[in-house]
């Protein structure tokens, strides 16, 4: 009889890419649930639509490239990209926003660069940035959190809004939001907490004045803090299961913490504090789910720390002095650009190759 020939090693850990991506998707569940609870059905609708779009787009483009479709789809990376993008955009943004974003992420950022493992940028974040700079109006239209809303949109209404921009009763997104905001709430547009603070500070208000808005409560912005905590939970699960190492989240959050701590110390009442930075916007999502994307992050542990610290600093800098309210996407993309350099300078010293200096002694 003939025997099977293979190259060593013959045993293997049973944790392939598919499994890793599944785990990450699983860990997103608490965060997504929190978002649904706070921002309504729109989140789920965005998510489902994004995933379907991603799968279709990836299949079509792979077919166009004459590449096998099934193995590429099985690795779950397209689904993860779509999910990350979907939870990053406002829940009531019209369907074509997420559609364009997903197509761009999958086709241009991922496939055109050569598919999984070849993209230098995080596809979800590149897609997000495309949407943010192209459709700033839609991309900054966040609903107020459920706590403050005067009524809850039904699933059907959310669906209608998503596809037609009008509810079944014929109200537009604008009208819905205005009604939501009409009652007693400070007439800020649908600004996120970070957005609000920025606006207020730029108008010359102090931090404590801007924190008086009813959108704040607890540790940071209402709703946003819960979402961030939920993503933190999911992230902790990933670290515990060793799907990701602790380096990136700890370094990122640590840097952000130090930077915002210094900021509030030296500019009292002028800059938002640690609690706001850590629990607003995409901080936790970014630290555990986005910056940890293996493809576009640095590889060595040392490199990962440098990479994540860079993101932390950039997030703080862009949030404080940049042109857009939240900064995770820009920070991640900029850090992605630095990855080859970081990798180059964080190379480990191979066994037996003692540095010239040491050997000279």
């Amino acid at each position, binding site marked *: 009889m003939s025997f099977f020939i293979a190259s*060593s090693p*013959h045993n293997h850990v049973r944790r392939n890419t598919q499994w*890793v991506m599944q785990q990450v998707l699983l860990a997103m569940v608490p965060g997504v649930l929190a978002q649904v609870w706070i921002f309504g059905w729109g989140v789920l609708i965005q998510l489902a639509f994004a995933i379907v779009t991603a799968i279709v787009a990836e299949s079509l483009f792979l077919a166009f490239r004459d590449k096998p479709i099934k193995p590429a789809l099985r690795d779950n990376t397209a689904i993860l990209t779509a999910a990350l993008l979907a939870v990053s955009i406002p829940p009531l943004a019209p369907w074509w926003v997420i559609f364009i974003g997903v197509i761009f992420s999958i086709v241009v950022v991922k496939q055109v660069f050569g598919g*999984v493992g070849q993209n230098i940028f995080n596809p979800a974040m590149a897609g997000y940035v495309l949407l943010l700079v192209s459709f700033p109006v839609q991309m900054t239209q966040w609903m107020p959190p459920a706590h403050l809303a005067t009524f809850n949109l039904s699933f059907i209404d959310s669906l209608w809004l998503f596809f037609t921009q009008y509810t079944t009763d014929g109200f537009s997104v604008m009208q819905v939001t205005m009604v939501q905001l009409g009652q007693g709430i400070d007439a800020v547009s649908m600004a996120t907490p970070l957005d609000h603070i920025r606006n207020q500070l730029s108008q010359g208000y102090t931090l404590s004045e801007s924190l008086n808005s009813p959108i704040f409560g607890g540790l940071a912005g209402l709703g946003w803090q819960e979402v961030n905590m939920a993503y933190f939970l999911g992230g902790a699960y990933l670290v515990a299961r060793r799907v990701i190492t602790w380096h990136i989240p700890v370094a990122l959050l640590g840097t952000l913490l130090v930077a915002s701590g210094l900021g509030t110390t030296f500019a009292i009442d002028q800059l938002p504090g640690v609690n706001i930075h850590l629990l607003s916007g995409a901080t936790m999502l970014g630290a555990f789910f986005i910056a940890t994307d293996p493809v576009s992050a640095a590889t060595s542990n040392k490199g990962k720390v440098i990479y994540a610290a860079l993101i932390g600093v950039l997030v703080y800098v862009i949030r404080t002095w940049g042109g857009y309210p939240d900064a995770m996407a820009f920070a991640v993309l900029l850090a992605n650009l630095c990855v080859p350099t970081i990798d180059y300078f964080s190379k480990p010293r191979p*066994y*037996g190759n003692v540095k010239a200096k040491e050997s000279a002694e």
Partner: protein
Amino acid sequence: MASAIKIWSFPGGVHPPERKTLANQTATATTELPEKVYVPVKQHIGAEGQLLVQPGDTVLRGQALTQPGMSGGLPVHAPSSGTVINIAEHTSNHPSGIPTLTITIKLDGKHESIEFTAVENPLEQSPQELIKYIREAGIAGLGGAAYPTAQKLSQTQNTELLIINGVECEPYIVSDDRLMREHAEEIVSGITILQSALQAQQTIVAIEDNKPEAIQAMRQAIESASIEAAVAVVPTKYPSGGEKQLIQLLTGKEVPSNGYPSDMGILMQNVGTAYAIHEAIYLGKPLMERIVTLTGEALQKPGTVWALLGTPVSHLLDSASLQASSKQKVIIGGPMMGYTISDLEVPVVKSTNCILCPTESELPATGHEMACIRCGQCEQVCPASLLPQQLYWYAKASDHDALKQHHLKDCIECGACAYVCPSEIPLVHYYRKAKAEIREELIEQQKADIARQRFEARQARLEREKQARLEKHKKAAEARQAALAARAAAAEADPTEQSTADTAANNGEKQSKVAAAIARAKAKNAAQAESATAEDDKKARVAEAVARAKAKKAAQAESATAEDDKKARVAEAVARAKAKKAAQAESATPEDDKAKQSSQQSDNAEAEKKRRVAAAVARAKAKKAEQQKQQNSVTTSERGDSESS
């Protein structure tokens, strides 16, 4: 004492399931004698030895089948008594399965031995003597690399630290474990020989902490033998048994990338080697058998066995009752570094420490190779601190310069990177291929350099000849006179005598060369006799063929002990060339002396090559002379200048 040894650590490493209990629960068995054994002539790293037997010879257990040749090498011994039935290419115990020269012995079942004589008072022998005995016993590193032990010992000077490696970190394999449990005293006795041969200052026996019985046994043996040695218990982690990793674990130092442990005064030997040394010195037994782990869930009776070197793998697997499935793998070595074989008739060799037959569910085949996602896990487990993923990209792109820059040569192929890779990329396979390509490229480059030199030399020679011809036409009359003189001289020379005289100077090759020379002379005479009357090509060819056949027969008869056909042929060519040259009466030229001188220095390894060069020189000269003769012109004395190649 053991607690005094500081255990350091090395970067990376993995913890694959150990699965050692499959085979280490029972005492080592002895198998029935196989019908035939296949003894490959070369079972170690280095040159192969010279054959001492031929088909039809009867051999006894322990009889040497080869002896070290001029360029070193180790002997192999008959593991049992029987008849040599064949010496031919046989599938090798190598990942490639490429056939190698193998002595097949049909065993007679009597298991008769030669008389083994132990070394007397071994501890009072000089290190050189001990090393000589170890070499003659054919001992090579039994841990897996099969580097000749004697060579390793003689290369090491001022040994500060002797490490006896009983770590055995690969999953499944328990050969050393069982050996230490059952033969701790013999191992310790072997260690004393090593200490004596090396004058080592310190000795450490390293064992992984998952082998408590072996640790216990070794400690007791060391204590009762009261020798200067300590047992170091290292934590279980793969690949802590790798030479470089173990040195780092025990000393905290790294072996320099281009160096050897001996540069640091460290020498490492496997426990099995120590056992073999004991057998060789105290019992006089050469290396004829080794302990082999038969394991894997496809075997019904796993365990360890003493296997004669040369035993076909199929024989061992039959004894362990292999239940082969459709995608059955038979792995020589462990799951991390072992290789599969496709033909079970390959023999057990000195480096075969384990035969692993896993079921499909036990060690499933690697899945579809997916794209690298740059997760960096490979980098974290690499014990050599390399960048496996970068190496993978460069290997894929065949970027050899980048591979060298990223220290591919420091990769020990331990397989940790491929073990953890979530994309199931066979990384080690890529590295092996790249290493082979780089090696090939180097060989090609060297060949190209030689070819360039030869081509340029030839061009220069042609140019000189052209000049010489022009010169010659100018001085036609003068040249013709010289030609007459030369021809007269040629007539006086006795070719046979000349060639004998030449070869007599050559001590190493004397026999074969004389034989060849005689044959050649005969052939030449015959050819000349025939061709003198023959007019056309055909007749000449027939004559040549006849002469050739005669020469072959003669050579065959005389050169039974000649190392190989190549040498014989070269020798023959040399003789022939010389004979021809003598006929041309050019033996007085300085170049010829040179050729003679060079052929005298035949003791070392380079002699072979030099002789060939000399032969080529002579040949070229002869050829030239031949041409000149055809043109009915003369050889001038300047001709000799052209032989610079």
